[in-house]
């Protein structure tokens, strides 16, 4: 066991995957010499050499496209997109190509790549460094989209994403990269490269971050700890027991966990940082109303970012869901 931040846990996963399977390669902007702008890839160049850790030009279409080609030739590439907004030049490669190789080849040649994206606001970054583009990928058939929130989930889910034959978009909430430490087992969560793949639950299930029966807050990423804090305050303010569900898997959804949380609590708030319109909260809300509407005591409500481009950092605290806004939303659902 070691006490690790999310960054260190991701770094551990990369070391372990590359150690266990020499088909694993990593490419991206500044991932080798610099060790990544967030140091997620620190130490890898020294350990595995420049044929497996590749510094690329600033060209995301080229990075993703190269990774797809490497994958079709039998490698297992991991791509780092340096910041969220930088993924858009590579959007065509991800959506039109990576997502479709399995279908186009009748399952014979999936593009087995992992696209790691540090995303989201709250780090006082300049413009174009704070988007939450996860809904754009979750809507695209052929991609898996996941988002860990704890260091040990980050380690286990990244190993599973590398092992998974499908392209996985791996969203890393950069605001909580170093928010806290957790004991992470250095033992592998499953046997790498034995041909059986990763356990499916690592890329398809939600996690209960806090138990409760009066209200369910369904969220993911950097708003998970904020929701837990809001839940604690709701308990002391007014004796409300709030369950916090960390989605972890953004596609596929853990429909079972979402619907049973809704049925159990009867009141649901969805929280995310991305713009509200056509964000993941819309799908969570629609699913619940489709399947378990009669168990609800109030409509599913959403606390989200706003339908404007992510603001400059001087204004980002007004844009991001805060504990106060989450509590306000929760009180609205509770008092409905």
């Amino acid at each position, binding site marked *: 066991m070691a006490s690790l931040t999310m960054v260190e846990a991701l770094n551990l996963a990369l070391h372990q995957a590359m150690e266990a399977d020499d088909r694993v390669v990593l490419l991206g902007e500044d991932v080798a010499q610099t060790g990544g702008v967030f140091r997620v890839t620190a130490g890898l160049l020294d350990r595995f050499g420049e044929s497996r850790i590749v510094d690329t030009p600033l060209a995301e279409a080229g990075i993703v496209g190269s990774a797809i080609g490497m994958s079709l030739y039998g490698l297992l590439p991991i791509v780092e997109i340096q910041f969220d907004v930088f993924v858009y030049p590579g959007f065509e490669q991800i959506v039109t190509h990576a997502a*479709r190789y399995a279908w186009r080849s009748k399952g014979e040649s999936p593009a087995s790549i992992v696209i790691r994206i540090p995303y989201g606001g709250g780090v006082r970054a300049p413009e174009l460094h704070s988007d939450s583009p996860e809904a754009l990928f979750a809507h695209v*058939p052929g991609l898996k989209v996941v988002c860990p929130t704890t260091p040990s989930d980050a380690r286990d889910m990244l190993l599973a994403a590398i092992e998974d034959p499908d392209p996985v978009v791996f969203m890393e909430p950069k605001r909580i990269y170093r928010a806290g430490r957790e004991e992470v087992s250095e033992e592998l969560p499953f046997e790498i490269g034995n041909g059986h793949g990763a356990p499916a639950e690592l890329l398809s299930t939600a996690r209960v971050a806090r138990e409760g029966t009066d209200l369910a807050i369904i969220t993911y990423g950097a708003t998970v700890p904020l929701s837990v804090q809001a839940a604690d305050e709701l308990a002391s303010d007014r004796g409300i027991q709030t369950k916090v569900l960390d989605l972890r898997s953004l596609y596929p959804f853990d429909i079972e966990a979402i619907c049973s949380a809704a049925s159990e609590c009867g009141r649901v708030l969805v929280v995310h940082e991305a713009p509200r*319109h056509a964000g993941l909260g819309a799908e969570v*809300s*629609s699913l619940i*109303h489709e399947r378990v509407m009669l168990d*609800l005591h109030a409509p599913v409500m959403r606390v989200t970012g706003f339908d404007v*481009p992510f603001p400059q950092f001087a204004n980002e605290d007004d844009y991001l869901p805060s504990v106060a806004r989450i509590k306000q939303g929760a009180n609205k659902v509770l008092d409905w």
Partner: protein
Amino acid sequence: MAETATTNKNLVSTIHDTLAEEMRNDDRIVVLGEDVGARGGVFRVTMGFLDEFGEDRVIDTPLDENLIAGVAIGMAMDGLLPVAEMQFADFIFPGFNQIVQEAARIRYRSNNDFNCPVLFRTPYGGGVHGALYHSQSIEALFAHVPGLKVVAPSTPEDAKGMLITAIQDEDPVLFLEHKKCYRLIKGDVPDERYNIEFGKAKVRREGSDVTVVSYGLMHHFCVEAADRLSKDGIEAEVIDLRSIYPLDMGTILESVGKTNKVMIVYEDNKFLGVGAEVAAQIAENALFELDGPIVRIGGPHVPAMPFAPTLEHWFLPDVDRLEQEMRKLAEY
């Protein structure tokens, strides 16, 4: 009221005629895209434009959507009114960065000093045996991007009024044309010039038993299914969304208040499609007026769209299926 003169035409001719007329009225309007010049566009939307307006205003571009979008953005910021054609909606993604990161943000980034009156037109949707790369529905991806307007007229009359509005709009607009509707859908189009405001849905068929919200080709299927149900005494109210962002929730909620049952139909894959946002907003505003679940009918979560006719048919909701689903909800 004096009767307005109209001409009966199909969707593609209406878009052609409207765009030509606007170009005659305003020489800031230029069109650019793949094959829009010498060939007149693969769907003939810009047929004859090169001869009439010349190559300074009708520009054949290389096969590079990133370039098309980027050049159009620059033209728009420099005083022109570019109408960029993406040959098929499926091809828009190489230009995604320009549209999402540049066009959509210019007004915000410049603190309102600059704006970007660019218009992206693109044929979308399935049912024409276009297979994987000529059939996609892309509207939900762009509806999630702040700073863009996304519209999808489904009748010739709406296409004219909304195209004029789109060209005049001071901000970027994505104008979606369902390619199966191009020649299938005909209607009386007023000869005079008129605008149809964005953010206004239209109740195309009144009814009291169930509200059906859709757009594009699916809207026509829904009207047909509703007409069939009418023979059995079930009256569906069919709403054509027309504008995907901004949404007209007022019209939808008013109808839901009357029928207490609602279904949203779209051919894009269901997960996180436009119907998710419509359903979420209906629930937020009118949950306890409902007498049944909010039903969404959308495509399966596989890449659009299979080539084999049987699979394409399986992928796309059809009138039979919609009739069945509407009946089921009405009887819920």
